[in-house]
C-alpha cells in the first residue's frame, strides 16, 4: 500500500513552492520549461518537444509593475502573471504561451514583449466555434504552434513523441477525474485546501511523475475506511479558488468541494479525448467536445444544466459561483445559469473576489451565511 499521506505532503510542498519544484524538475531531467498561461494551451506538444510545460495561474503577489502595461480592470490573474514576468520570477522559462480566450489575454499577449521580461511569447489563437471548419483550423493552429516551438527551441517534435505525450496527458486527466470523485468519501483528508493543493501541484511537475503520485494517493486512500464528517457539500464554479485565505474559509466552515467547474481544476481534465485520429486531431477534438466553459462559445449554453447535474449527482448542498473580479466571460454566463439553478431549486451563492485576497472578512461573511442558511 502506498504511503498516501507522504504523497499528499509531497504534492502540497510542490504547490507551496512552485519555483523550487520547477527548478528541481528542470535539474533532474535536464529539460527546459515553458510557461502556459490559462486557460487551455497545447501542453502535449511542449511535452513532446522534451520541455516541461508549467502552468502560470497568477498567485498572491503585490501587483505594481504590471500596472504600467495593463489596466486594473484586467483580471487579477492575468495582471499577476505579467507582474511575475516583469519582476523576474519566471526567469527560468524559455518562453510563455498565451492563448486568446478573452480581451485581457489578447492584451497580455500583445503587451508582454513591452514588459522587458526577456521571455519570448508564443501566442495561440483558439477558435470560438465548434463547426468542422473550426476543428480543421485548430489542427492547423496546433501545427503552426509546433513549427514556431521547434524553431524557438531547436527541437523537432516527432509524431511518435506526440502520441506518447498525448497518452501521458490522457492518463493524467483520467486519474484526476477519478481523484475528484473520491473527495466526498474522504472529506477530512481531502479537505478543500488539500484537494486544491493536490490538483494544483500538477502544473509544476512532469505529468507522468505527477500521475503516478496521484495514483498512489488514490490507491492509498481507497484502502482506508470512508471518513465521516458533518460537512457542507458544494460545487465550485468559476476560474479558480486558490488564495489560502479563501480556502481557509471553506475549511473553517466544513465545506467539502464534492465537484468543481473551475478553469484551474476540472475544466482541464473533465472531457476525455476520443479514440480515433492522430494526436493533434484528438487534441483538437477534445477542445471541440469541451462543454460548459465560459471561455468557449457555446450556443447551447449547457453550463446551467451541467451545474444542476453536478450538484444533484454529488448530493451537494449548493453551488458557489466563485467570480473572478473583472472576468467578463464568467460575468456574462452567470445570469444565464443563475436562472436555471434557481428554477431547479439548487442553492447558489455568488462571491466576487480578486485572486489576491487581503481582507477576507466580507468573503467569509457571505460564505458562512450561505452555510448557515442552507445547512
Amino acid at each position, binding site marked *: 500500500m502506498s504511503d498516501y499521506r507522504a504523497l499528499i505532503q509531497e504534492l502540497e510542498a510542490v504547490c507551496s513552492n512552485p519555483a523550487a519544484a520547477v527548478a528541481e524538475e528542470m535539474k533532474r531531467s535536464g529539460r527546459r520549461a515553458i510557461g502556459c498561461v490559462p486557460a487551455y494551451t497545447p501542453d502535449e506538444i511542449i511535452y513532446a518537444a522534451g520541455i516541461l510545460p508549467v502552468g502560470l495561474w497568477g498567485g498572491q503577489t503585490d501587483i505594481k509593475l504590471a500596472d504600467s502595461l495593463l489596466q486594473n480592470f484586467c483580471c487579477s490573474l492575468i495582471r499577476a502573471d505579467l507582474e511575475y514576468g516583469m519582476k523576474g520570477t519566471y526567469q527560468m522559462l524559455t518562453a510563455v504561451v498565451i492563448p486568446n480566450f478573452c480581451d485581457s489575454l489578447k492584451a497580455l499577449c500583445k503587451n508582454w514583449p513591452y514588459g522587458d521580461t526577456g521571455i519570448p511569447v508564443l501566442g495561440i489563437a483558439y477558435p470560438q466555434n465548434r463547426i468542422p471548419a473550426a476543428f480543421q483550423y485548430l489542427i492547423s493552429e496546433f501545427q503552426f504552434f509546433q513549427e514556431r516551438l521547434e524553431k524557438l527551441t531547436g527541437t523537432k517534435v516527432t509524431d511518435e513523441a506526440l502520441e506518447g505525450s498525448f497518452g501521458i496527458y490522457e492518463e493524467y486527466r483520467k486519474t484526476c477525474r477519478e481523484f475528484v470523485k473520491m473527495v466526498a468519501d474522504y472529506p477530512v483528508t481531502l479537505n478543500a485546501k488539500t484537494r486544491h493543493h493536490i490538483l494544483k501541484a500538477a502544473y509544476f511537475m512532469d505529468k507522468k511523475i505527477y500521475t503516478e503520485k496521484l495514483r498512489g494517493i488514490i490507491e492509498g486512500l481507497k484502502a482506508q475506511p470512508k471518513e465521516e464528517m458533518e460537512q457542507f457539500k458544494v460545487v465550485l464554479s468559476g476560474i479558480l479558488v486558490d488564495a489560502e485565505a479563501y480556502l481557509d474559509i471553506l475549511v473553517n466552515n466544513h465545506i467539502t468541494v464534492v465537484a468543481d467547474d473551475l478553469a484551474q481544476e476540472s475544466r482541464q481534465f473533465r472531457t476525455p479525448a476520443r479514440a480515433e485520429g492522430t494526436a493533434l486531431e484528438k487534441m483538437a477534438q477534445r477542445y471541440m467536445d469541451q462543454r460548459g466553459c465560459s471561455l468557449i462559445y457555446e450556443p447551447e449554453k449547457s453550463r446551467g444544466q451541467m451545474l444542476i447535474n453536478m450538484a444533484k449527482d454529488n448530493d451537494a448542498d449548493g453551488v458557489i459561483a466563485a467570480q473572478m473580479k473583472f472576468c467578463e466571460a464568467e460575468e456574462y454566463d452567470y445570469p444565464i445559469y443563475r436562472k436555471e439553478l434557481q428554477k431547479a431549486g439548487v442553492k447558489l451563492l455568488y462571491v*466576487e473576489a480578486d485572486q489576491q485576497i487581503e*481582507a477576507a*472578512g*466580507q468573503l467569509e*461573511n*457571505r460564505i458562512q*451565511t450561505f452555510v*448557515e*442558511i442552507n445547512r
Partner: protein
Amino acid sequence: MFLGIDIGSSSSKAVLLDEEKRVLAEEALNLGTGSNGISQVLEQVYSKTGRTPKDILYSVVTGYGRNVYKGADAQVTEISCHAKGVTHLFGEARTVIDIGGQDAKVIRLDGEGNVADFVMNDKCAAGTGRFLEVMARVLNCDIYRLSDLAAKSLRGTQISSVCTVFAEAEVISQLSLGSKVEDVAKGALQSVAKRVCGQARRIQVAPQVVMTGGVALIPEAVHMVEKELGEEIAVPGSPQTVGALGAALFAWEKYHR
C-alpha cells in the same frame, strides 16, 4: 441570562436577554473591532443590570470582530443575526436593509425568520456608513447632522462618483464652485439610498421593509431609501443593536436546544 455581542467595523454592541427573551439591557458604542469598545459595552450592560459574566448561560458573538473575540460560546454571521433580530421585533418583516460602517446588506426573509437570500456591497465603501462619515468630514459636521442639513435642501447635489475617495474630491470641488452645504448633504444621502436600493432590487424587495444599522439613526437617510424604494420603512427603536439582539436570541435557542 443570554448575551448577544456584535463587534462591527465601527461600533460595538451588546444585548442581554432574560429567560422570557425580554431585553434587560442594550448598549452601543462607536468603537469597533480592534478597539476596547466591546469591553466597555459589556461593562455598561452588566452595570445597568447589576449582573456579572457568571450569570450568562450562553453567549453568541457576531459582526466582523466575531472571529477574534474569544469570550463567546458560539459565533454567527451578522446576516443571520439581523434576520433573527428583525423577525423578533417585526413578525411581518420580509426585507431587511442593514447599513453599517463598512458594508450594506439587504436580506430577504422567508416569513419564518430565516434568510431566504441576501446581497452585500463589495469591499468598496460606496453606499455604507463610511461614505457618509467621509462626506460629513468634508462638510465639517457630525454624521447625524447630515439629516438636519439635508432636510433644509430643496435639491440635492448630484454625486456621480461611486468610489468614496473620488466622491470626496468631487464634493470638495462642488463646494468650491458654490454648492450649498445642505444640497451636498442631501446628495450624499441620496447617493447611499440609490446604491443600496440598486442592491435591494437584485433580491426582490417585499414589504414589510425594516432598516437596521447605524445609518438607520439618520432620519433623512431612511426617508431617501423609502423614496428610492417606493416602500414604507420601519425602523426599530434601537437599530444599531438589532444584530446583537439576534445574537442573543441565537444564544437563547442554542442553550435550549
